[in-house]
């Protein structure tokens, strides 16, 4: 069996399953957020009754992160719906925007978009927060009401996005009927060269198979090249499985996985027992791709979909209006470090926005020193508009007052994960997906630029 099949067989209480089988699997974690949580709660209450209790109050993780720093009253209300539900259900892991359990959330626009407006429990973008808060464990099943839930596959677990109705069902029963997906095999070898990042790996893979090339399928990443990738790298790659239509992505378990998971579970006091899945000789794949990491170059997915692959150097001269570093995929500490490596001592020439995924990443960047300056200072001095208000921000457009949102038909190069028409705001705007290094280099010139020109 493949890694995905092994996890699904275990969660279904079966000795073996194969692609195409429909099985009831037990959920380990259900994650929801402010955009889909209120609707999921609505389905749960409607179907199980007003007095119903969630199947496991320690297994439902609620992370407001999408539309937080906006004056939109419905968005603010949605955070309050989550708080009421978390209190009523005694949800163990609710990462509220504010500290007072009896309060209500209201964004104060007068303070501006850059200064932090959240309390001590706020966790930021759900997919980045889940591992930071010790909710991703090898061998488990994670459902989330968000398509990028597949990011947690980096931790050797089965993680997939579901809708409100399915999530309402899981909330009440702890189970879901799933079809076992066929597995596509991506064997990684070699090592990324300077200026080339994990984002380039996944944009390369999506370009290989087409952006619907993994529809209904699992994408398994393994091989000796994986050992040369950090957990952040693996998260970036797994995150974008959905951009090829994939049901999930999954990585092999190794010492790095163990160290990251054990540390995070201990830090937040979450359950630390888990059973990884390992490869065996009898894996059936429907597709094989070998990726030599050493040979990859900075890659861009052009408007209007993640499969429009080109090399950055082939697009030189493509003029841009703005640049954006942020999101679950591209707003991690390591992402900003690579951007800072390119931007240090230089100045951007187009509007450039930086949105860390989580408050912890804000803290990292403000407390990591490079010479006599923090990484945060280096980015700000280069002209990047850095906000402390960690969250999804303009990655998915959001309400019109969202930080970095494109409210006009502009062209943006972005370290985010999706570039369908209108994704970051205006429906005639265009998004070019690239690594944080490529975004940073392009911000310096105002057109698409290979970051290897700026590595000195």
């Amino acid at each position: 069996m493949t890694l995905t099949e092994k996890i699904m067989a275990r969660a279904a209480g079966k000795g073996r399953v194969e692609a195409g089988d429909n099985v009831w699997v037990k959920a380990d974690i259900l994650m929801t957020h402010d955009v889909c949580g209120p609707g999921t709660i609505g389905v749960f209450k409607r179907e199980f009754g007003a007095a119903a209790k969630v199947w496991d109050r320690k297994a439902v993780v609620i992370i407001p992160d999408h539309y937080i720093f906006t004056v939109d009253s419905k968005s603010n209300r949605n955070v309050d719906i989550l708080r009421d539900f978390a209190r009523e259900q005694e949800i163990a892991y609710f990462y509220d925007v504010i500290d007072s359990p009896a309060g209500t959330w209201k964004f104060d626009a007068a303070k501006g978009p850059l200064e932090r407006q959240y309390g001590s429990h706020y966790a930021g973008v759900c997919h980045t927060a889940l591992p930071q808060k010790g909710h991703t464990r090898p061998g488990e099943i994670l459902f989330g009401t968000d398509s990028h839930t597949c990011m947690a596959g980096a931790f050797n677990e089965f993680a997939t996005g579901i809708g409100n109705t399915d999530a309402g069902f899981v909330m009440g029963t702890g189970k879901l009927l799933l079809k076992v997906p066929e597995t596509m095999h991506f064997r990684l070898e070699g090592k990324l060269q300077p200026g080339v990042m994990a984002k380039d790996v996944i944009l390369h893979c999506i370009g290989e198979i087409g952006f619907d090339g993994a529809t209904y399928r699992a994408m398994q990443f393994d091989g000796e090249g994986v050992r040369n990738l950090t957990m952040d790298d693996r998260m970036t790659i797994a995150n974008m499985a959905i951009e090829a239509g994939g049901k999930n992505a999954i990585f092999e378990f190794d010492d790095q996985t163990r160290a990251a998971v054990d540390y995070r579970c201990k830090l937040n006091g979450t359950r630390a027992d888990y059973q990884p899945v390992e490869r065996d000789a009898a894996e059936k794949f429907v597709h094989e791709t070998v990726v030599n990491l050493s040979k990859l170059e900075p890659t861009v997915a052009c408007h209007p979909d993640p499969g429009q692959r080109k090399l950055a150097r082939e697009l030189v001269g493509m003029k841009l209006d703005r640049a954006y570093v942020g999101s679950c995929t591209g707003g991690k500490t390591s992402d900003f470090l690579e951007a800072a490596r390119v931007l240090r001592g230089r100045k951007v020439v187009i509007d450039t926005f930086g949105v860390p995924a989580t408050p912890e990443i804000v803290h990292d960047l403000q407390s990591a020193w490079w010479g006599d300056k923090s990484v945060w200072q280096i980015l700000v001095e280069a002209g990047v508009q850095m906000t402390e208000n960690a969250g999804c921000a303009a990655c998915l457009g959001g309400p019109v007052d969202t930080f970095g949102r494109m409210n006009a038909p502009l062209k943006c190069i972005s370290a985010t994960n999706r570039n369908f028409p209108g994704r970051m705001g205006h429906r005639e705007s265009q998004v070019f997906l690239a690594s944080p290094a490529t975004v940073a280099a392009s911000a310096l010139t105002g057109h698409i630029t290979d970051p290897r020109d700026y590595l000195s």
Partner: protein
Amino acid sequence: MQSVFTGSVYVVRDNIDTDQIISAQYLNLVPTIPDEYKKLGTYALAGLPDSLYPIRFVAPGQPVGAYPIVVGGRNFGCGSSREHAPIALGSAGCKVVLAQSFARIFFRNSVATGELYPCECADRLCEILKTGDVVTVDLDKLTVTAKATGKVYSLKPLGDVKPVVDAGGLFNYARKTGMMPVSPG
């Protein structure tokens, strides 16, 4: 249970993602709140670029669209897992989406909510039909008949999906088939 749908089609192309079906800025609306469910319908397919789709799916100021059938190409509903997407289409009066292929989560959400029938058709109907053409979709005979030409196109079988949508979604189906108790709680 209704199996035959006749009406005008709204035609879109390949890779219509969930942002184009319901723009992210309207995800502040909660589908289980009745007023907000209705509001979602008024924004259905509003994310399509004007330059490519000068005719809007829901005319400005109208509560619902004039098209019970949406015709797409490949990979309809790709992108996010937002259930608001099939709900917005259903709320706007769409009963059937005909496409060459569907993205996984959109397909599943269409069935789980019972909002619409996601039907696969091997023919590239998005190049054969144009917005406003009248067709008849017969889900028992698995055919699409174009009124103007009389031409008949076949649909792939809906399999286990049809009875779930017929019942009005996952929970109703589960109750109807004895998988769940009839009354909540």
